[in-house]
C-alpha cells in the first residue's frame, strides 16, 4: 500500500455495504430488473444422451396464443464462432448429452413459454451412449494439461522402486461422486437487443461480466464493446457461474427474434443439472510408501475422471499431492474418460477439494498403519521447500495451523483406537485433515477513480460479488489506497460499462481487483494530489505479476472434526468442526470468516450428502432437484468455528493477502471421513458417507 489514513479500513470487520438491500430482498438479481414488456423463454431439452434430432414439429407450440417464436436447429441463426462446442447452440441436429438444448420457445408469459416448450415434439435417431466412468474405461486418455494449465503427469525419483521397498504401504482407491454447484440463484440471463440489432445487453448471473461479454461477443461475431453485461448482484456461483454457458447464447439468439424486447430466461433447478457444469466424479488411487515412523518415501496419486466428448475439462485433482508433503519419490497422473455427458466445469476448489479428500484420507490410513498420531504424521512430513519446484515457501503455515488447531480443539490425549468411545447410542470419533489452496492472481484488471461533485471518490471496476463480500472489501482497499475514510469512497462493480475485471474464481478476486484499485489510486494521487478537483479521474491496471517470483505461495489450514455415528441407524452428526487457516492478510474479518465457514459447510455437505446419481440407461442425473440432491441444511450444522493466523504474506502482492473463498472446502470431507472411521472403525472410501454405509 502506498499510504493509509490514520485509521486503516483494511482489517476492520465491516458489515456488508449491500446488507440492507439483501435482507429486504430489494437488491436486484439478473431476473429482477424492471424492464418494459419482457418476453419469456422456454427451452426444450434433449431426452436422449446421444444421437440426432430427426424432426421437430413446432405446429402445436406455434398455435398457442402468446407464442412469439420457436427456435429449432433448422431455423436458428448460424453463429459466428462455434469452435467451443458448448456454445454451438442449435447449430446442428447432433445430440451430445441428455439435457442439451434442442429447441426453444419465446412467449408472452412464463406460463405460456413453459407450456409451449412442452408442446414442441422432437423426434430423435438414438445412438448407443456411454455415461459411466470406470477406472479401466477403454477410452481413457491423458489430457494435454489440467485445469489451471499445469501438466497432467509428473514424476520425481523412482516411486515404484520406493513403494516396493517401503516398510509400510498404503494402497487405496477413493471415489468421489458427480456433484453440482447448485447456487441458490438459478443461472439466469435476460437478453435485450436494441431495435437496430447491433447492441446486446445481458442482465446475467455471472462471476465475471467481462468474461461473459468476450465469450458472447465472440460467438455472435460482435465487437465486445457492443455487448454489455450487467451483474451487480449474483446469487452464488461456486464456480458454475465462472463462465458463460449455453443458456447465455440461447437467450441472446431468442432475443434477436424480438429486437427491442427483453427475453427473460432463468434455468429451472432441474435444467441446471445438465447445462451449467458440475464436478466430475473421480476415482483416485493413492499409494503411500513410508518407514515405520510414517516418514514418506514415495507418494503416487493416480486420478481418473470424466469429461464430455464435446469439450474437455480436466479437473486437477492430483496436483495437491505434488507439493503437500515431503517425499523423494513421487508421481501424479490424470486420465480422462470422454463420455456422452454434460460438460464438467469448476466447482468450489476444483482439483483441491476431491484431491485433498483422497490424499488426506490416505494420510489418515498411514497414521493408523504406523501407529502415529495423524497430526504428528503430517508434521513429520513437512517439506522445507516446495517439492514440486524446489522453491522456498513464502508463508507455509501448515505446522502452526495443525499445532494450534489441535490445541484449540482439544486433540491431545486422543485415544487412537477406532470404535472405542460411545455416548448413549452414539459412537464418537475425531478426525483431522490438512487444507491448502494455491495463491492465484489474475492479471489485467483495471480500475477507474473519479472524484465527484459530491466530494466522494467513485471507484469503478467490473468485478463480481457472488457473496464473497467483494464490494465491501474493495471499498476498504480503495479507501486505504486513496488515504481516505470509507465514507468518501463509493465502489461500483458488476457491469461491463465499468473497467475490465477478471473472473471471480480461484479465490483470486479480492487480490486481483484490489491490485487494480491500488494501481489506480497511485495514479490518481500522483496526478491529482490529495485535494482533487471534482471531475478528476484516473485509471490503473493491475500488474502482470503481483506476486514476488521465486516463491511458492499457498494458503494452508487444518480441519478438526468430531463426528457421531448412531450405533443402530448409521446416522451421522457432526457437532463440532474447527478450521484454522493461514491466508496472509485478511481484508475484512467478518466476511472472511463467513467465507471460511461457508466453505466448511460445503465440505461437510460434500462429505455427508452430495451426490448426483447418473442413470446409465438414460444418461441423466436422476436426483436432479434440491429434494433429492441433498445439501446441508440448518439442522446439519452446529459447533462450527473458523479462525486464522494473523499475518500477511510478504510475497503475495500489494495487499499481502491470499484468497479465502475456497480453502474452507479443501480437506473438510477427509476430516469428516477420518472422524467417522475413528468413531466406528469403518473406513468408507467413497463419498458421500451415508447412514447405510455404517449400519451394523
Amino acid at each position: 500500500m502506498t499510504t493509509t489514513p490514520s485509521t486503516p479500513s483494511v482489517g476492520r470487520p465491516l458489515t456488508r455495504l449491500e446488507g440492507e438491500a439483501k435482507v429486504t430482498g430489494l437488491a436486484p438479481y439478473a431476473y429482477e430488473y424492471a424492464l418494459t414488456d419482457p418476453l419469456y423463454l422456454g427451452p426444450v431439452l434433449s431426452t436422449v444422451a446421444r444421437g440426432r434430432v430427426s424432426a421437430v414439429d413446432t405446429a402445436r407450440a406455434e398455435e398457442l396464443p402468446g407464442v412469439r417464436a420457436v427456435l429449432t436447429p433448422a431455423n436458428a441463426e448460424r453463429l459466428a464462432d462455434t469452435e467451443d462446442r458448448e456454445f454451438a447452440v442449435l447449430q446442428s441436429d447432433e445430440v451430445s448429452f441428455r439435457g442439451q438444448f434442442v429447441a426453444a420457445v419465446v412467449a408472452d408469459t412464463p406460463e405460456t413459454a413453459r407450456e409451449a416448450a412442452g408442446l414442441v415434439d422432437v423426434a430423435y435417431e438414438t445412438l448407443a451412449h456411454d455415461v459411466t466412468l470406470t477406472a479401466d474405461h477403454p477410452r481413457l486418455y491423458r489430457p494435454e494439461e489440467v485445469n489451471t494449465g499445469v501438466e497432467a503427469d509428473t514424476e520425481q525419483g523412482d516411486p515404484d522402486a520406493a513403494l516396493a521397498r517401503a516398510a509400510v504401504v498404503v494402497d487405496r482407491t477413493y471415489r468421489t461422486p458427480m456433484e453440482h454447484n447448485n447456487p441458490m440463484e438459478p443461472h439466469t440471463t435476460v437478453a435485450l437487443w436494441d431495435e437496430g440489432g447491433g447492441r446486446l445487453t445481458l442482465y446475467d448471473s455471472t462471476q465475471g461480466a467481462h468474461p461473459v461479454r468476450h465469450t458472447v461477443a465472440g460467438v455472435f461475431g460482435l465487437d465486445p464493446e457492443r455487448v454489455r453485461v450487467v451483474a451487480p448482484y449474483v446469487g452464488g456461483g461456486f464456480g458454475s457461474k465462472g463462465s458463460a454457458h449455453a443458456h447465455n447464447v440461447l437467450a441472446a439468439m431468442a432475443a434477436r427474434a424480438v429486437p427491442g424486447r427483453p427475453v427473460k430466461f432463468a434455468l429451472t433447478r432441474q435444467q441446471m443439472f445438465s447445462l451449467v457444469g458440475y464436478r466430475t466424479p473421480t476415482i483416485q488411487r493413492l499409494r503411500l510408501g513410508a518407514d515405520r515412523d510414517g516418514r514418506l518415501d514415495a507418494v503416487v496419486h493416480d486420478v481418473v475422471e470424466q469429461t464430455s466428448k464435446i469439450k474437455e475439462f480436466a479437473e486437477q485433482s492430483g496436483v495437491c499431492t505434488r507439493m503437500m508433503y515431503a517425499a523423494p519419490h513421487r508421481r501424479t497422473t490424470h486420465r480422462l474418460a470422454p463420455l456422452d455427458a454434460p460438460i464438467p466445469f469448476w466447482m468450489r476448489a476444483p482439483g483441491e477439494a476431491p484431491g485433498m479428500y483422497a490424499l488426506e484420507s490416505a494420510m489418515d490410513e498411514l497414521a493408523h498403519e504406523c501407529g502415529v498420531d495423524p497430526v504428528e504424521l503430517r508434521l513429520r512430513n513437512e517439506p522445507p521447500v516446495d517439492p514440486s519446484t524446489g522453491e522456498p515457501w513464502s508463508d507455509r503455515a501448515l505446522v502452526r495451523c495443525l499445532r494450534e488447531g489441535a490445541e484449540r480443539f482439544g486433540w491431545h490425549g486422543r485415544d487412537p483406537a477406532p470404535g472405542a468411545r460411545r455416548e448413549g447410542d452414539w459412537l464418537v470419533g475425531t478426525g483431522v485433515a490438512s487444507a491448502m489452496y494455491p495463491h492465484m492472481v489474475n492479471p489485467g484488471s483495471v480500475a477507474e477513480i473519479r472524484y465527484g461533485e459530491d466530494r466522494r471518490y467513485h471507484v469503478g471496476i467490473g468485478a463480481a460479488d457472488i457473496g464473497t463480500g467483494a464490494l465491501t472489501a474493495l471499498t476498504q482497499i480503495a479507501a486505504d489506497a486513496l488515504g481516505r475514510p470509507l465514507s468518501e469512497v463509493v465502489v461500483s462493480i458488476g457491469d461491463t460499462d465499468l473497467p475490465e475485471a477478471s473472473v471471480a474464481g480461484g479465490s483470486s478476486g479480492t487480490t486481483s481487483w484490489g491490485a487494480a484499485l491500488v494501481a489506480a489510486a497511485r495514479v490518481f494521487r500522483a496526478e491529482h494530489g490529495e485535494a482533487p478537483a471534482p471531475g478528476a479521474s484516473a485509471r490503473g491496471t493491475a500488474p502482470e505479476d503481483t506476486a514476488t517470483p521465486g516463491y511458492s505461495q499457498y494458503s494452508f489450514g487444518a480441519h478438526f472434526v468430531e463426528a457421531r455415528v448412531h450405533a443402530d441407524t448409521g446416522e451421522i452428526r457432526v457437532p463440532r468442526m474447527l478450521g484454522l487457516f493461514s491466508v496472509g492478510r485478511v481484508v475484512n474479518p467478518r466476511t472472511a470468516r463467513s467465507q471460511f465457514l461457508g466453505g466448511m459447510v460445503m465440505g461437510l455437505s460434500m462429505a455427508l450428502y452430495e451426490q448426483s446419481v447418473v442413470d446409465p440407461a438414460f444418461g441423466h442425473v436422476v436426483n436432479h432437484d434440491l429434494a433429492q440432491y441433498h445439501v446441508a441444511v440448518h439442522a446439519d450444522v452446529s459447533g462450527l468455528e473458523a479462525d486464522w493466523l494473523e499475518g500477511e504474506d510478504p510475497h503475495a502482492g500489494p495487499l499481502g493477502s491470499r484468497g479465502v473463498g475456497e480453502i474452507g472446502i479443501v480437506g473438510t470431507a477427509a476430516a469428516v471421513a477420518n472422524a467417522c472411521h475413528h468413531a466406528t472403525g469403518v473406513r468408507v472410501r467413497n463419498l458421500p458417507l451415508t447412514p447405510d454405509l455404517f449400519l451394523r
Partner: protein
Amino acid sequence: MDATITLRVDGEERRLTVDTRTTLLDALRDRLEATSPKKGCDHGQCGACTVLLDGRRILSCLALAVAHDGADVTTAAGLGSGDGAPGGELHPVARAFVDHDGFQCGYCTPGQVCSAVGMLREAEAGWPSHATADLDAPVSLDDEEIRERMSGNLCRCGAYTNIVAAIREAAR
C-alpha cells in the same frame, strides 16, 4: 385462463390479472415486480420464496395465486420495523442478519428472514418442533430448535452459523 384477483402486498392493495397457473411467487415477481421473494427451486425444496401469507410463513412457489384472492402477503421488503407499520427502520430480524453477517450472496436471505419471523411467532405460540424432546412441555427456543425450525431454508453459501446467531439475538 385468466382471473382477476386482489392481493394485499406489503400493506398495499394490488389488483391484478393472473393465469390460473400463475403461482403466488410468479404473481409477485412477474406481475407485480415485487421481487423480494426469490425463486430458487420452484418446487418447495429450498425456502427462498418464503413469504408470510395472512401472517404464516409459506412457500409462495407452491401456492396458486388464484387460490389466494384477497390474501395478505408480507415479503421481506415489507416487514417494516416489526411494529406492524411498513417502511422505516429494518425489522429487528433483518437488522440482526446484517449485524451477524447471516448471508453471503443474499439470494436465500429474504426467505430466511421471512421464515425466521414466522418461526418466532410459531415458537411464541408454543408450537413444538422435531427438536423438541418433550412434546408435552413448553418450548424453549435454543439453538437446536432454531436450526430445526429453519431447516426448510437452504443456504448454499453456508451462512447457517451466522443466521442462527442472528435469530438468537432477535429472539431475545
